[in-house]
């Protein structure tokens, strides 16, 4: 069921890096925080920032630990979208990390919540076919996390 990821063409890699980081805060910051590994699908890449530790730890305790890693849920799986999202998120992350001015507890942004939802359906589409069937035609569809809030990071309360 798990898919392999398209290999990264270097031109896109560079583009994403430039958009994300130039708009972010600068090479030193990002480099020091091992920003380069940010573009890997290894969860350790996310943990490079201690601020992600909690998400990492809780993911390890979650039911999906063996089934899905961070990017499986948090990045879109269309080819170009994926790197654009990386660039945008990379901007938020390095900016947030350097200025320490983000909202805490960290909360998923609406746009990323949409990406997440798509990923649930990407893997579980067959199972939830009926539920999604009528959801697609009406706005404000039922989100998986409404009930499964803890699939990615264990119990939330």
């Amino acid at each position, binding site marked *: 069921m798990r898919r392999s990821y398209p290999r990264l063409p270097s031109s896109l890699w560079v583009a994403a890096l430039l958009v994300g980081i130039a708009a972010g805060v600068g090479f030193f910051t990002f480099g020091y925080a091992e920003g380069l590994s940010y573009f890997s699908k290894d969860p350790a890449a996310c943990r490079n920032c201690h601020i992600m530790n909690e998400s990492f730890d809780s993911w390890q305790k979650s039911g999906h630990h063996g089934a899905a890693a961070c990017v499986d849920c948090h990045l879109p799986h269309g080819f170009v979208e994926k790197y654009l999202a990386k660039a945008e998120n990379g901007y938020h992350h390095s900016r947030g990390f350097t200025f320490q001015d983000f909202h805490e507890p960290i909360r998923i942004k609406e746009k990323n919540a949409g990406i997440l939802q798509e990923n649930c359906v990407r893997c579980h589409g*067959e*199972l939830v*076919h009926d*539920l999604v069937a009528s959801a697609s035609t*009406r706005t404000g569809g*039922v989100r998986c996390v409404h*009930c499964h809030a*803890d699939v990615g990071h264990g119990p939330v309360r």
Partner: protein
Amino acid sequence: NIFERKQEAKDPYLKLVQVSEETTDPETWGMNWPRQFDAYKRTADATRTKFGGSEAMPAQKLERDPWLKRMYDGYAFSIDYRDRRGHAYMLFDQEHTERVTKKPQPGACLHCHASILPLYRHVGSGDVMKGFEEVCAMPYQQAHDLKDDSGKPLVRHPVSCVDCHDPKNMELRVTRPGFLNGIRALKASQGIEDFDPNRDATRQEMRSYVCGQCHVEYYFKGDRKTLTYPWHKGLKVEEIEAYYDEAGYKDWTHAETGAPALKAQHPEFEMWNQGIHSRSGVACADCHMPYVRQGALKISDHWIRSPLVNDESISRACQPCHRYPEAEIRTRVDLIQERNHALLQRAASALMDQMDAVRSAKAGGATPADLAPVLELQRKAQWRIDFVSSENSMGFHAPQEAARILGEAIDFARQGQAKAVMLAATKP
């Protein structure tokens, strides 16, 4: 096997028969959606929980809580008033209650006990709202027995698929005129004009609105007995009361005391609206129709019932959001319901004491004019008691709100008692 499941998964909406607006027979729909239909049929099964569930022979509430009989004195509910049970029985139970067999009732009753849209269309010559109003005004039996042009009875089934689903695409929808009018009035009072749930509501809202079609407080307005949901000022107990007060409405005159009394009926939707679950976007269907896995598919459990029936129902209804063992979840509900139950009984005693005091005052010669303020307090008290006691979750849907309402009920009843005692004493 795996192959089979994959097949199942691909074509869940394989339609074997066509269904239309006129298909009220769930069995026909069942050919297309056998899983939902099988579950739907199980609403005929008996279940049992501490304060809810349903039994083969529903218990007489009037016997379990004799104060109900006195509270409803002079009204049909004092003759026969039972525990609710599954949807499969709704038409049968209405046909057979002594409230119908011994008292005249209007066609309005059918609105929530039958798959009724074809009847409305028939009577209204295609205009549902018109048909609805006509049917409300008819005597019960007449409305019940109407036949279509080919001579087939129009009222044959309890709530059915077509009442909640659009036969074209299975989307949820609201069909009941009472609800459409009621929610429009409510939204208008909040500054939203011309609200149409079938157009304006989110899917998650629809997962409650379909139930709000029936699980609500109502009254029959005017001589034509138009079924009305009194939501024009809001859904809270005192907002509904204010609506009735302004309309100078009473359901009946209390036989023993003469109070201008109100009857509250199953205000689940209203009570849920005051609770934390509603505020958190948790819908009726989340708890009463939780998802269940069947083979490679996840579907909504159409065996609508109490989530407390057994550990499995608790786990499906509650555990996706509350990660506690079933026994712990059950205990939490139990604590809430027991507190509510004790306070309800306390409020009922207060009401009985007030009635005793009125009796003494009358015996002592108090006049109707003397008694008017006392009876006004009785109206307020029993409206509140009834609002909680006829709500079917024993406080669970909104624990603090239910307790607040009961606290007010106690206050009014005991104030009335003190006033009546005073009257009894001052009249020589």
